[in-house]
């Protein structure tokens, strides 16, 4: 036994019952069981149900269900919507974040608050807003009718509504990051003779890439999964204006559980992939934050 033992008043062979602040032994397992039970009931069971129901009638039935023309059309529309909304909101979000983080101007705080509006109001109201603007009885209705442009109950309306509900993600992620990083790097690039574009692509973009990617992933997840706003403007024309979430709802309403769950499983898979990518990006983002500080 060492001469310089700290536990000087513990008699040899006698185990102390409590160390200082240690909680009773049963707390840890009890807490973990409660948490696990909760996870099983609320997350694992529903997930398992989706895939279980999807494959209930066999792989063949599943394959038939997801290759049905209306399903393929819904997948196409969902991907098209994401393919337009994600780049649009990425470019816009970077511009917005840049303006807010690097410049001072009148009304900046109001603008920062306004960015949150799509999150604050119900998606259904967002959809209704577009109907009131572009519907046949809406503000621009007569003009659109005169020029034979269809927005509501058509693909443009779906894209507009999705772009609206997803636009804050990139900007919201980038504003604090860009404010934290500051202007020094950009100013250094400019004094070294870089043009605005070279400064952006060689200095700014590498500095914000993980934050940007995180915002893009969140935008994509929401664009694919949006239901409320899209439901209002869609008009639910099968094979034309139904996105995946809308089509799942239709199939379910018609008691076609098999098909509904098959499409649902696809959407869930997309969400799971997003989640994994998001977790990986979060890791890099944390690393970068550590470096900045």
């Amino acid at each position, binding site marked *: 036994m060492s001469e310089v033992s700290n536990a000087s008043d513990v008699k040899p062979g006698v185990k102390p019952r409590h160390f200082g602040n240690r909680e009773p032994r049963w707390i840890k397992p009890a807490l973990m069981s409660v948490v696990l039970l909760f996870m099983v009931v609320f997350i694992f069971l529903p997930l398992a149900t989706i895939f279980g129901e999807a494959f209930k009638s066999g792989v063949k039935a599943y394959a038939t269900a997801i290759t049905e023309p209306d399903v393929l059309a819904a997948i196409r529309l969902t991907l098209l919507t994401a393919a337009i909304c994600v780049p649009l909101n990425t470019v816009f979000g970077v511009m917005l974040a840049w303006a807010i983080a690097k410049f001072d101007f009148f009304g900046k705080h109001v603008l920062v608050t306004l960015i949150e509006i799509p999150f604050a109001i119900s998606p259904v109201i967002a959809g209704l807003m577009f109907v009131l603007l572009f519907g046949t009885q809406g503000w621009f209705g007569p003009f659109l009718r005169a020029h034979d442009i269809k927005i509501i109950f058509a693909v443009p309306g779906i894209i507009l509504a999705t772009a609206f509900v997803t636009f804050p993600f990139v900007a919201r992620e980038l504003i604090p990051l860009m404010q934290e990083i500051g202007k020094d790097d950009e100013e250094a690039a400019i004094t070294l003779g870089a043009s605005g574009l070279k400064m952006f692509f060689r200095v700014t973009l*590498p500095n914000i890439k993980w934050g940007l990617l995180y915002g893009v992933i969140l935008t994509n997840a929401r664009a694919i999964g949006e239901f409320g706003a899209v439901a209002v403007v869609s008009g639910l024309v099968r094979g034309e204006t139904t996105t995946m979430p809308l089509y799942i709802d239709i199939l379910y309403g018609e008691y076609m559980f098999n098909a509904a769950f098959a499409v649902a499983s696809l959407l869930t898979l997309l969400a799971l992939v997003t989640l994994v990518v998001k977790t990986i990006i979060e890791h890099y983002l944390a690393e970068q934050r550590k470096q900045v500080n």
Partner: protein
Amino acid sequence: MSIRIANLSKRFGDFTALSNINLEIPDGELTALLGPSGSGKTTLLRIIAGLTDPDEGSVNFFGEDATHKATRDRRVGFVFQHYALFKHMSIFENIAFGLKVRPRATRPTNEEIREKVNKLLSLVQLQGTAQRFPSELSGGQKQRVALARALAVEPKVLLLDEPFGALDAKVRLELRRWLRYLHDEIHLTSVFVTHDQEEALEVSDKVVILNKGQIEQTGTPEEVYDNPGNPFVYGFLGNVNLFHARLKQEGGLALDARTGAENVSLYIRPHDISISPLNTDGKGIEARVTAHRVLGNRVRVELKTLTGDREVEANIERKEWNALKDADLGAVFIQILGAKIYAPDDTWSDYAI
């Protein structure tokens, strides 16, 4: 003159950062912009660089009006307090950045760039770090890389914004001496901002003292230290004991008064005070020692005058303190070796011993 600044003013909202600045920066010299925080020194540097636009006035570069010239056309090298190195680039890439972003027509070849970067790396004594990343270097090394990066584009003027501000005391001292040697070698017109008077006096050829957006005094370090233009400059360049005195013709302290005023202020540096146990020439002021602290080879002594109870700070040599230590510290005599007199009519005069 390489840079000429005329009637320059800048406001941020209600705050006046600079008002009516007129300044000439001499060619090939190292000029310090010295002042407390909020004095406008960094704003002035940023206006010279073109990173901030002035509200009024003009900036002239080598005889050419540059007030509205874009930063990247000014050919200035800028060194930031927090280095501003590009974290995702190696040291080599950082230094080469200014050369690589040039339009194709004026861009040097890869071979030329490599040669130049290596030359700069040896100039800043960082050979062998080319492939490392900024996060692997110490603060002092990072600032030297930043300097090499700024020099790579062969600027006509080098601007440094509190370049040693983020470093610890020892590295700070080393690096500022090194900067002085480097400047003696390359003779590039340089302007650096600092709030540290010691740094400004040690490094620069010319000091510009700023306060509340205005220039208080310009001159060589010796000039401004020995002949401070006003009480602010005097107080800012070192510690000071301030006395209010009444000028009389007879008795007391002998003053070489070139002012007609009666009520004057007396400014005395702590090291212009000596302490002795005896009042040999009869000019001493009786005081008692209240505290002391040994700072290496000097001792800071706090005293209180016996009449008037005025606090006095003296900074004496260790030898002097050692001789004093055994004496009765309750009754010593303060001798004033030098002082400045400031009269309300804004005239300065020297205290005659």
